[in-house]
């Protein structure tokens, strides 16, 4: 079997005060797969994600990227090889969309024309057609458009691994579905290893082959997507109940 794109090996994080954020995480994420991380607020999803690009460090155990321990790799080059998308988008307000998207290339030393060419190819890929977007600034875009720009930036240097932390969390339901559909087609086309943090079980099932449930810094369930709905695991049932509850509410308001 090929080496795992990302591995967590007995990874734990205990704060200096003694509070345990993550405990004994053991996971291997297959190359080219999409894995969803679910869990309620504060369960450690973001922290676990940030172990992969060395934005957080464990107090015990280790994270490995392509078989190499994260701690033994050069932080900046590791990070440049990993796309990172966050809910707040993190677009730089003093840079045009083109500069924002091209930043990973700028740091790799690409020329202005190389960057312009690549950006012109990336923006339509994330659904931003038309040449005008490149010259605009983040404040001139809607929230959904900014989210697309954030995704384009993460894809710019064509990194094999993509970390996504609630990328669609702040969007209205219609835009959200649009983004999910675009993401699904991108995932199919680009063969990235994707780690997706979400609160939304339906989003997880739609985009991922595997769903991991975190609670209190532990993995409480780890299932292939098609085994989630039939699962009798109480942790998983909670999520299914939440989804059913929403649907029932929708049906009630519809009738």
């Amino acid at each position, binding site marked *: 079997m090929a080496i795992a794109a990302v591995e967590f090996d007995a990874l734990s994080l205990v704060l200096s005060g003694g509070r345990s954020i993550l405990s004994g995480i053991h996971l291997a994420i297959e190359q080219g797969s999409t894995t969803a991380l679910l869990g309620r607020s504060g369960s450690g999803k973001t922290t676990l994600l940030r172990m992969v690009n060395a*934005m957080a460090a464990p107090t015990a155990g280790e994270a490995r990227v392509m078989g190499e321990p994260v701690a033994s790799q050069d932080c*900046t080059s590791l*990070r440049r090889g990993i796309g990172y998308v966050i809910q707040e988008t*993190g677009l730089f307000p003093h840079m045009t969309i083109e500069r924002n998207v091209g930043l990973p290339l700028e740091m790799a030393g690409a020329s202005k024309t190389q960057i312009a060419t690549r950006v012109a190819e990336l923006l339509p890929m994330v659904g931003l057609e038309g040449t005008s977007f490149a010259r605009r600034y983040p404040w001139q875009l809607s929230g959904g458009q900014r989210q697309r720009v954030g995704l384009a930036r993460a894809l710019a240097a064509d990194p094999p691994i993509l970390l996504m932390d609630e990328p669609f969390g702040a969007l209205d339901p219609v835009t959200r579905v649009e983004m999910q559909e675009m993401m699904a087609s991108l995932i199919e086309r680009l063969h990235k290893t994707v780690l997706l943090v979400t609160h939304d079980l339906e989003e997880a099932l739609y985009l991922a082959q595997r769903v991991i449930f975190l609670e209190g810094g532990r993995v409480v369930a780890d299932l292939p997507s098609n085994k989630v709905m039939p699962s009798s695991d109480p942790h998983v049932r909670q999520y299914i109940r939440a989804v059913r509850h929403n649907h029932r509410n929708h049906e009630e308001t519809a009738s």
Partner: protein
Amino acid sequence: MTGFLRAHGYEMARLTFEHLWLTLFAMLLATVIGLPLGIVLSRRPRLAKPIIGFANVLQTVPSLALFGLLLPVPWLGENAARLAILALTGYALLPILRNTYAGIRSIDPTLTDIATALGMTARQRLLKVELPLSASVILAGLRTATVTCVGVATIAAAIGAGGLGELIFRGVASVDNGLVLGGAIPAALLALLADAALGFAEKKLTVKRA
């Protein structure tokens, strides 16, 4: 008016130039010290309080007293211009230091975080993200410092460092209002000009938020 200019025009021009020179030299020194120090302090907020506090105290010493206090200091006291420049630097330091520190500290932590996550080195982050985002705040500090310097530099004449204050002091001593105005008006114009120019640059560098 024309008679006054004919009699004192050359001197006014010379003293304006001297005034400008004192101010610019002091601003250069204060920037070279204050900007890097402000950047360093933004990384070590614990040190910031005592150091900015010290600059604050420096700022509150009356300028005439500061000039007088520095006069007996060996190397400094020998040259009036040298002393004046150093004292002016002390006054310019606080606004530059404080604004650099505050400007960098006020950047949305999400942005510095994502800069790091994109693989920027500390230096790239500073040059590409932190300084551009705090440029308008830093410039506001430079503006305050410049205006303060232009004002305080008039006092430098009291210790013989020259500048437009010389006309003012002479005018006061000889009860000649013309002389006083001949020094005060160019000094005020210099301050206004610096204020307007740096204010314009500050506006240009203000970043619109999403």
